[in-house]
């Protein structure tokens, strides 16, 4: 898997390169600034880009802007955005074009190499990886999402994992359920929230996130 990496802190950049290369990834470019990132993305067309939100020279959201610009020119270019903090505002902007291949995670998640690489692979495959904190914030707004109250606690757990972009198999593994049991839960969730059911992981997460966002 060919990866473009953008991270301005040397230690973290080197750590990420080592982590990715140890798991059958080739880091074709490791850049430090926003303009370099955009150039690298358009030149290499990687299988996935791992991008820090805040990059020099302005130290604002240059990484995010470069990734969004690149995705406008190369639709569906898989991008996994890393940040010290997660904002629903950014999550919305990343998901806005609805083409998938988007990840948005806290930097802490690299601590768990397996889960991090799972997310990288999912994004590279056109899937979605949303940080649990984004999902948790969305679900914490009782005044906005009245129908959520109809879900059972178990269904809520399934919904959270589904919104993070996980497949039925992965959800089953996490919650110690059979895949068919998970399927029943998801069908029930879609029924209760009046959403059209879908087996495609990516379309599914977009529908759920759009629903949660749309209720605002």
């Amino acid at each position, binding site marked *: 898997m060919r990866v473009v990496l953008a991270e301005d802190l040397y230690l973290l950049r080197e750590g990420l390169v080592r982590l990715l290369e140890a798991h059958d990834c080739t880091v074709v470019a490791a850049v430090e600034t926003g303009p370099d990132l955009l150039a690298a993305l358009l030149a290499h067309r990687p299988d996935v880009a791992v991008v820090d939100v*805040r990059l020099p020279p*302005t130290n604002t959201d240059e990484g995010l802007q470069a990734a969004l610009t690149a995705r406008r020119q190369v639709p569906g270019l898989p991008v996994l955005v890393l940040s010290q903090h997660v904002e629903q*505002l950014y999550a919305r902007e990343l998901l806005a074009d609805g083409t998938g291949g988007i990840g948005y995670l806290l930097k802490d998640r690299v601590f768990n190499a397996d889960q991090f690489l799972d997310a990288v692979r999912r994004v590279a495959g056109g899937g979605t990886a949303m940080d649990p904190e984004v999902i948790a914030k969305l679900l914490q707004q*009782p005044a*906005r999402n009245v129908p959520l109250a109809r879900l059972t606690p178990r269904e809520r757990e399934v919904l959270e994992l589904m919104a993070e972009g996980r497949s039925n198999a992965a959800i089953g593994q996490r919650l110690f359920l059979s895949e068919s049991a998970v399927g029943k839960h998801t069908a029930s969730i879609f029924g209760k929230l009046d959403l059209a059911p879908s087996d495609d992981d990516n379309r599914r997460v977009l529908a759920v996130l759009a629903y949660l966002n749309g209720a605002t």
Partner: protein
Amino acid sequence: MFRSYALAPLRCVALALLAVFGFVASLPLMMSIGAIVTYPHVLLLVRRLNSLSRRLAGAWSGVVIDLPYREGPVPTPPRRPDGWYEHEGQLFKTRHYPAFFLRMQWLSDDPATARDWMWLVLLAPIGGLVALLAPGFVLAGVVLVAGVTGPGRRMLADAGLTDLVAWPGVTMPGWAVLAAGLAAIVAGVLAGPALLRAHGRWARQWLGHPGLTWWQSSGIGAWLRKGGHDTWQAALLLGLSLTGFAVFLLTLLLTLVSGGFGIAWLAYAIRPMLNHYRRLCVKWGDGEPMPDPYRQREPVPEPGPDGRYRVGRTLYATRDGARRAGFFPWILGDSATWRDLAWMATAPLAALLAVVPGVLIGAGYFGLFWQALFWPLWGVPFGLITGVWVSPWYTWQLMTLGMPFLDAVPGWLSIPIGLALGLLGVLLAGPVLRLITGWARLLLAPSRSAELTQRVEHLAQTRAEAVDASSAELRRIERDLHDGAQARLVAVGLSLGTVEQLMDRDPAAARVLLAQARETSAAALAELRDLVRGIHPPVLAERGLADAVRALALDAALPVEVRADLAGQPPAPVATAAYFAVAEALANAARHAQAGRVGVDIRHTGGLLRVTVTDDGRGGAEPTHGGGLHGLRRRLATFDGTLALHSPQGGPTVLTLEIPCALSSPRTSTS
């Protein structure tokens, strides 16, 4: 049918009697207004009296008259959380007094009140005179008929009234007189209902709902009202100016008698009145604020090494003595004291001009213009009873007494002259009031140096608060780091050290410790993240104020609509203060207001960043001392920013904050 014709003359008499009664009663009623306490009762009595006129007009002429009075409940004073009632900055223990004042204001602000009085004093008697035509004809006819018939002639002769029907020089055959008498009776009876209707329409014209008349739409009414207000406001300022002049004379006297001893006390004692005058000048003048210009009193100095207190060139043994002695340099060394004195010496010169519009309107409009209208009400009965007929131009004659050259002017011209004089007075009232308030501003507003002194005081205070706040913030951050992230990193280091030792001996235990270390470092990161958010939210640094507030809105527990119109970024500290203000407002709306929706509006106009947060909650929010809003206000004061909370019971709550600042060009780094 017959009944209504037969009753009409009697009803006309009743209406005329009612008008006379109203006119007679209006005098004691007007006088009893003077005793303020009775004011609302008097007005309600007038209303009741006029409502009788409305009812009679409805019953007897079929003209329906709507009630013109202002609708809705009489305003009541709100009860404060501390149990007191407020009215214009004064607190009252019971609702009785403020309710009375509000009721009085409410009643006298009603335009129908003035019309009620007009009806009672003037318009009802005019209507009554018209209505009297019907019974008048009938009575005249009866007298004529009685004059030619036998028993009637005898009765008249017995009463010595033969001359009444036997006009000298007029000879008429008896049948003609009889016919004329009968015709008069018939005409009176036939005209009765028509006259009643005319009276009803007249009453509707003045007692009904006025609607929007040309008077109001053309702005003439407003212009006249403004002129009237300017006149009495100028007169009131004149009164206060004369008080000030008296104080000036007293100061002169003290200078002569006691060599100036006591001036300081006097100058200090008059300050509240002058501040009141300043407020009135702002309210009635151009509205430009005029803060009080006085210097703040300096604290008593610390005692010297010998234990004594130095004030000026004198040493005082006790703190109390030093405090008392410090009073004189404080007052007499303040340039505002001397400017006050200069104003008090000169104010009457400007304020005496207030007499001009007052006299013009009083003598011209109320004196000359109204004389002829009032004349029938007292001049005619007076003439009928005493036989002495006063001229309808009585005021004019009184005014021109001793000015024989004015005798050439015909008396009726005094009516247009009076109207013109009154209008001239209205025209002059505005400029005169502006002159008076302008003169006051020249001397009573803070001088440039007083303004600078106050500015320095304000800056010193807000700087001290800002320093306090930031050092408290630093202490909090230090404590959070010390107890949180730092401690956790120590724990991680310890675990890793242990892992190093265990790695070969007990790999399973080492793995458990490693997992723990990872969790601890994640927790430390999460704490650092929260800490950073509290200091300076990353999204603010990355995106600027508008997007940071949008991010805040997305995280809020309520639906929040954000509208932002910013051409650039405010300076970072201003943006941070505004951001935390919005965060606090959103949290309050979610927690206390039971709001369903919140709107945030951010714009920059005229060098002012204005942020408005509106919620549709239940309102009634009050900034408590030491509460979140209080802290925000202090924080904004550092930037000369202001925070206004408008939250009536029942909502909506509007929080407005304004910070003077310039915008930088868009998308430049703020960190």
